[in-house]
């Protein structure tokens, strides 16, 4: 593991009226680590993700990715740099099949979409890699199913396959386990720990079992501020964190 941060956030601020969703956030995510960001509801986690991915512009502060200042880089140019997100609320193409969903990601990653005549559905350079990514998340059997008809857990995994198809250097995962059953959560935990070899990850998650099973480091966000960053053990024993989670037993149990 190298020490140079892949993602470096300095003094990030974002307010919605009087509400400070990001209040001087400083965060460094190192190459090869899974860095979890946890915090109570309304702490500003999704706002932070939206700024990292360019969906929202910060009021102040900078975001560097691999040494490059990306604060002003538009959202759609960030995946090409290797910064890719998944969504908290499942965001797929419902009328496409599972395979077509991933093919779209493969196609956009290839950067060649102004092709007007060849049948995209028959291009092996699209179908081949797309099937591979479906296999990675264990969805190859559902390749031909319409995405809207997949189960919630399958859609979450499809979402992940689409993110992977962009071959990211860093994945920003916004609650990838949201609404999943235990079995599927375990499946995704196993999958993410496998991926750890090749991709740096920022993991925003409520499932504390998953967080403590996966994370190398954890940052705790409360009221728009990072109140602590450290190893899982340090976070578990941090007094400020315990206070913020006030009686939340999941931390102590994990």
């Amino acid at each position, binding site marked *: 593991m190298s020490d140079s941060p892949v993602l470096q956030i300095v003094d990030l601020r974002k307010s919605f009226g009087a509400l400070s969703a990001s209040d001087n956030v400083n965060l460094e995510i190192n190459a090869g680590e899974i860095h979890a960001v946890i915090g109570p509801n309304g702490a500003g986690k999704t706002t932070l993700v939206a700024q990292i*991915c360019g*969906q929202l512009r910060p009021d102040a502060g900078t975001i560097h990715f691999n040494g490059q200042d990306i604060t002003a880089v538009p*959202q*759609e*140019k*960030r*995946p*090409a740099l290797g910064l*890719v*997100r998944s*969504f908290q609320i499942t*965001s*797929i*193409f*419902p*009328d*496409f099949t599972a395979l*077509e969903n991933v*093919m*779209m*990601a493969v*196609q*956009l*990653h290839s950067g*060649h*979409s*102004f*092709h*007007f*005549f*060849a*049948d*995209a*559905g028959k*291009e092996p350079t*699209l179908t081949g890699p797309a099937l591979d990514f479906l296999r990675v998340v264990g969805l190859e059997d559902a390749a031909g199913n*319409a995405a809207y008809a997949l189960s919630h857990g399958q859609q979450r995994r499809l979402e992940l396959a*689409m993110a992977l198809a*962009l071959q990211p250097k860093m994945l920003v995962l916004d609650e990838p386990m949201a609404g999943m059953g235990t079995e599927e959560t375990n499946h995704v935990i196993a999958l993410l720990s496998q991926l750890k070899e090749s991709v740096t990850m920022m993991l925003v998650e409520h499932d504390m079992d998953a967080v403590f099973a996966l994370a190398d480091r954890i940052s705790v966000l409360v009221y728009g501020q990072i109140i602590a960053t450290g190893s899982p053990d340090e976070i578990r024993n941090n007094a400020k964190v315990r206070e913020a989670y006030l009686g939340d037993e999941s931390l102590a149990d994990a």
Partner: protein
Amino acid sequence: MGSIRTSVLALAALVFALLVPQILSYYGEDYLIGSASRIAIYALAAMSLNLILGYGGMISFGHAAYFGVGAYVVGIASFHLFDGSTIFGFGGTDAALLSWTLAVIVSALVALVLGALSLRTSGVYFIMITLAFAQMLYFLFVSLEQYGGDDGVIMYNGRNTLPGLDLSDDTTFYYVCLAFLVAFTVLVALLIRSRFGKVLQACRQNEDRMRALGCKVEHYKLATFVLAGAAAGLAGALNGNHAEYVSPDYLHWTKSGDLMIMVILGGIGTLFGPIVGAAAFLLLEEFLPVLFDTANLTEYKEHWRIVFGPLLILVVLFARGGLLGTLATIGGRNER
């Protein structure tokens, strides 16, 4: 998907379309060939609208603008030839190759400018701004006194000329219109399966996701908008030729509405829906008044829309895939 069945039906429809002039002359109704040309022309325009409306999910309420601009290019070129005057230093022309190419280019350019501005908005604002631009162009042409203002331009030289073909012959002209419709249908069929078409359909389904995947959504939407504008311009040029007359009515917002109705009536977001819709719309427009006559309601026949309106509402309420979707269901084809 029953794609073989679709191909067979499409082929049968094409054979029928090719035989229309013979069928009409067999029944001694040759004068109806003009209606057939109109159906082909409007099917082309509706199909171009379907590209942005159905496949792209962009609800443009100003598609008649490109139809009208294309028609006016042909009308103005013809006017200057007859008049002997010049426009921008050029004389007029009635050569179809030149005139129609110009119509396509100019309407594509207009679509490029209006699209670039309109696509900055979305939802209701997009509907309103496309409508507003189209109405601006409508009033622009109304104000052009040289070209007849409200009354429009009559093409005194008749239809354009095409080497080897006599366009003033209604049957020949019908086949030319049909050829353009078939060519554009093939183009759209290829397009919607291509990489570009997939991007367009994905943008309709989930634009945010496309951005997060690194797609410059606006580029694809604009390219589609321009393509659709160009095809509508061609349809307009053909319609100007068909009627040998061009007027601001071509650009009026009710014309945009008619095109929209054709798309929805036939089956939005389907390849052949706009053709079915255009045929149904224009045939009803032609024969509903006749029906009033036979029912001894001649004094009401100008109000044929009283029947047409509820019919349209019934289709929208109960036949969600449009007429094409209903036909497919009746034909026992499986869903999807």
